[in-house]
């Protein structure tokens, strides 16, 4: 090894070249690499996959990417995979594939090399190529993040246009387009369990808007004023459910000065001001 000065971790404890470890490798990961099993999940979340983890292991030891001590890294990597297994982490297939690849490279390096096949690729070459390409993009993605961008560093002008009203043409829209758009949202929401969209009577939501808008105009309304008996029983129920829904979402408050006094509805903002 020529650049041992840059690789204190490896060359200090190990006299033999790492590639010929011969069943007696450095099994103990360095202290600063040890991750308590409980923290492993969080730790792994910060990686973008097996290449990223591998890159981290290499960087952490200040190793030259071109001179990966395969045995060393494999042990550590397998250590993590083993830890993932013990705590029954849902192990991404990609990590296992990488582990298999590392093991394969390691085993090939242990085999005696024949002089006459020197054009055969070093088993590490392909891995190094991938690591380098990955590192390149990882780095540039940070650079891209640093670029000034709209909505974070600058904004487009949004001044009021004074125009000839009657001449402004607007696009047409079909009802089906709205339905499709919403279906699209629902499909996305399906993939994302945290957003729950349930079936809800639309008239209730519309009525919620309506009540809020009326409260904006008159600030406070008597409860009974909200109902329009000409709408029939269904209409009254819709209004009532809308009021309950508004209460539930803390958008309105109900006030009553004393028992049997008239009940009033006011917007939540009114009561906080």
């Amino acid at each position: 090894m020529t650049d041992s000065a840059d690789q204190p971790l490896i060359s200090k404890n190990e006299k033999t070249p790492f590639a010929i470890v011969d069943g007696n490798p450095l099994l103990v990961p360095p202290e600063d690499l040890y991750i308590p099993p409980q923290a492993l999940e969080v730790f792994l979340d910060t990686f973008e996959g097996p290449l990223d983890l591998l890159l981290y292991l290499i960087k952490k030891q200040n190793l030259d990417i071109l001179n990966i001590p395969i045995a060393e890294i494999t042990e550590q990597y397998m250590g993590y995979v083993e830890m993932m297994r013990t705590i029954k982490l849902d192990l991404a297939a990609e990590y296992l594939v990488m582990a298999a690849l590392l093991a394969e490279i390691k085993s090939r390096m242990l085999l005696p090399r024949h002089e006459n096949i020197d054009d055969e690729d070093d088993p590490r070459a392909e891995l190094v190529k991938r690591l380098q390409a990955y590192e390149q993009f990882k780095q540039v993605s940070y650079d891209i993040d640093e670029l000034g961008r709209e909505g974070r560093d600058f904004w487009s002008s949004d001044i009021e246009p004074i125009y000839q009203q009657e001449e402004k043409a607007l696009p047409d829209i079909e009802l089906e387009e709205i339905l499709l758009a919403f279906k699209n949202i629902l499909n996305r929401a399906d993939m994302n369990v945290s957003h729950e969209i349930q079936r809800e009577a639309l008239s209730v939501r519309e009525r919620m808007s309506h009540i809020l808008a009326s409260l904006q105009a008159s600030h406070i309304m008597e409860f009974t004023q909200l109902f329009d008996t000409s709408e029939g029983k269904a209409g009254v129920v819709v209004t009532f459910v809308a009021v309950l829904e508004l209460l539930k979402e803390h958008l309105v408050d109900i006030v009553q000065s004393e028992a049997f006094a008239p009940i009033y509805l006011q917007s939540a903002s009114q009561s906080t001001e």
Partner: protein
Amino acid sequence: MIVQEKLQAIIDAILLTAEVPLTIEKISTYFDADEYIARQDIKEALSVLQESNDRRGFELIESASGYRYQSKEAYKQWVTKHWQEKPQRYSRVFLETLALIIYRQPITRSEIEEVRGVAVSSNIIKALREREWIRVVGHKEVPGRPAMFGTTRELLDYFKLKSLDEMPPLAEIQNIDQLYPELDFSSSDDTDDIADHVKH
């Protein structure tokens, strides 16, 4: 400490990008306490800005609701051409935003963004309000008091509906493919804008 000239440029940038008119009171909230910006400083900066646009295409207008940059009346003949050619269709973001306001009203902008997973531009909200399809129905009592949007009578009229109940329920939307079998709704990654399917 912000010098007056910098203060002018800051307020200039604020007004240029504001979606609504801003009062002096409101503008003062853009500064932290340790920046020591007095109302009087803002007022002075605004009056300098009001005098700075002689040779420009816009002016600073003060109305009851506050200060606002707008294009000069004299150039409306040209500004109008932004809308001269009838736009072919609305963007997918526009349609999805409208759909969410219809089905989830009253809803705030950040709630829309939460469900859509991406930002909703102020232009879309503006366009929807301009068509009078949506309106502000109240403000949510959370920090910032964001506006909640709901739909209007005009929207129903546009779609010739008597009430929103006539919109298909969610269950049917899930099966919209069967509702409109002539349309190709395959939702693979590679399908183009949904509007394409609707129009053909």
